[in-house]
């Protein structure tokens, strides 16, 4: 604990004048920063309404002239967006379900069952977090190719549930569940599985919710694995589709590319704005390591 020396005749509270000025300055700085954060989105929307010819104008036009809404149906029609949405969505949902279920089980074992080597095993779990995806991706590719899972969603769904971070986070939550609840259930004759399913899981619902959101977002936005494992256009996820679109039209038609990008971003934005409180709290919780 840092010791703060008490100075005799401590200063009075600052007069309201400078304090208010400081506050205004703070707001101005935050607002300016906020504008910088928003600008790329605004620019994406503005550009997405520009026609191809307008890109060549110098000096550059800030506003679309005319506003070309046709970019949106064009982008949507050029590639199988609806299919990609469905792909991204169902893969993310399966990832969430499988990850939550299996990591809650493992977390319960680490939190509440005494067994030999528990600490060591948990340490190993955490250590695997440091292995970059890129180290295992070549062997994983070869393995999954052997199984015939390359160019199939199984390559994204099955390995995806292994998640030591999720185990760690849920273990923190489970440890906070009063042990008396579990003991009472055991006296009533409940077995381990019943205790886990009926007592522990309902009591860590906030943790499951937070983790579910994190896993969903990570799955929805992931790019590296889809890029490596998927080839067929009809299997593409949303980010993969957008990157292909940008590769084909990027340099030639910014308007169309950014319309595609906006189409990919807007649903997630809306979902975020609706659930922002929960999402932000869960992100904060995960960042603090579940403390």
């Amino acid at each position, binding site marked *: 604990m840092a010791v703060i020396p008490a100075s005799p005749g401590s200063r009075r509270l600052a007069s309201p004048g400078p304090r208010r000025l400081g506050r205004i300055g703070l707001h101005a700085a935050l607002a300016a920063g906020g504008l910088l954060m928003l600008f790329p989105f605004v620019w994406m929307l503005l550009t997405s309404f520009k026609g191809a010819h307008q890109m060549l104008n110098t000096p550059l036009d800030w506003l679309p002239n005319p506003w070309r809404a046709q970019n949106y149906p064009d982008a949507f029609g050029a590639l199988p967006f609806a299919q990609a949405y469905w792909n991204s969505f169902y893969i993310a949902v399966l990832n969430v379900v499988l990850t939550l279920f299996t990591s809650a089980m493992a977390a319960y074992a680490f939190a509440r069952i005494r067994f030999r080597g528990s600490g060591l095993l948990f340490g190993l779990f955490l250590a695997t977090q440091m292995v970059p995806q890129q180290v295992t991706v070549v062997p994983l590719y070869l393995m999954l190719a052997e199984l015939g899972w390359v160019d199939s969603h199984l390559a994204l769904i099955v390995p995806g549930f*292994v998640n030591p971070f999720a185990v760690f986070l849920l273990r923190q939550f489970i440890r906070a569940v009063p042990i008396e609840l579990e003991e009472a259930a055991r006296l009533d004759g409940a077995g381990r599985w019943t205790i886990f399913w009926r007592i522990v899981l309902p009591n860590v619902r906030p943790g499951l919710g937070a983790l579910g959101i994190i896993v969903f977002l990570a799955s929805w936005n992931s790019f590296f694995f889809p890029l490596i494992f998927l080839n067929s256009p009809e299997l593409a996820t949303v980010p993969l589709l957008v990157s292909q679109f940008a590769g084909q039209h990027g340099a030639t038609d910014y308007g169309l590319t950014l319309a595609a990008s906006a189409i990919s971003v807007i649903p997630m934005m809306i979902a975020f704005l609706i659930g922002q409180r929960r999402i932000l709290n869960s992100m904060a919780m995960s960042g603090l390591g579940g403390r």
Partner: protein
Amino acid sequence: MGVVTPARPTTGTRPARAAERVRNRDGWWAALFLAPQVLGLLAFLVFPLGFAIVLAFMRWDGLGEKSWVGFDNFAAQLTDPEFGTAVWNTVKLALLTVPVGLTLALLVALALNNVRGKTFYRVVYFLPVVTSSVAVAVMWQVILASGDYGVLNSTLHRWFGVTPPDWLDDPGWVIVAIAVVTIWSSLGLNVVIFLAGLQTIPPSLTEAARIDGAGPVRVLRSVTLPMISPTIFFSTVVAVISSFQAFDQIYVLVNPDHNEGARTIVYQVYDLGFQKFEFGMSSAAALILLALTLIVTFVQFAAQKRLVHYDS
């Protein structure tokens, strides 16, 4: 353990045997509960890691014959100027993104902590975090485009009369551009985490310091920063690791095949493995990345003993 009475010193008594039996059964339960994650971890992480280590000592294109080459792949990578560029770019990216990104995040979090409208600003700063890295890269590509086509350069040129570099095409500047995009897209996450850390500081503590006559800077240095140093440490470790693994923004924003300035170790791994089909070389490069990650993380953990304050 609710039902089981504690074992008495003499073994062989009934309660002791009962306890033993429960413990054995617990072992089975533990195995059952752990099975999916542990088996998954073995199959999709531990086994591939071992496989990668084996591959790193082989020459193989995935189709033809495998042959053992000893340390040749490592030697080839470590002496390859392309790989040298990749290591340097990876380090540069981390040095640019981590200190600047975390300092900015801390400043924003400190500002937000004392201001109304926290909810609103949190949402605004967080928007890029929920946006896919591909969309982020596409958005920035248009902003950073060269000459009069990009809004940044055309504005700099027309309003301030400077001739800025071609951010995405100039090998000397492209890492800076990637760093800016990375900082922009991860700022909100760190802000939210720091803000949560700040809120765990009991107000009585800062209040006490203030009553003792500490000015705002003193309070920040002697109370606030020590109190959230575990959070800062955690975020630093995560930020360094994720900066070492950055791929998406780089791949979409600039193709490192056309601009060597953007080639990082991760891109090298991808390029060797999935574009050149040199699986052995790719694995060797990946293992060097792993070694680098482990060393840097270890150094950070060693340093934290002196810098991080863990008593609450």
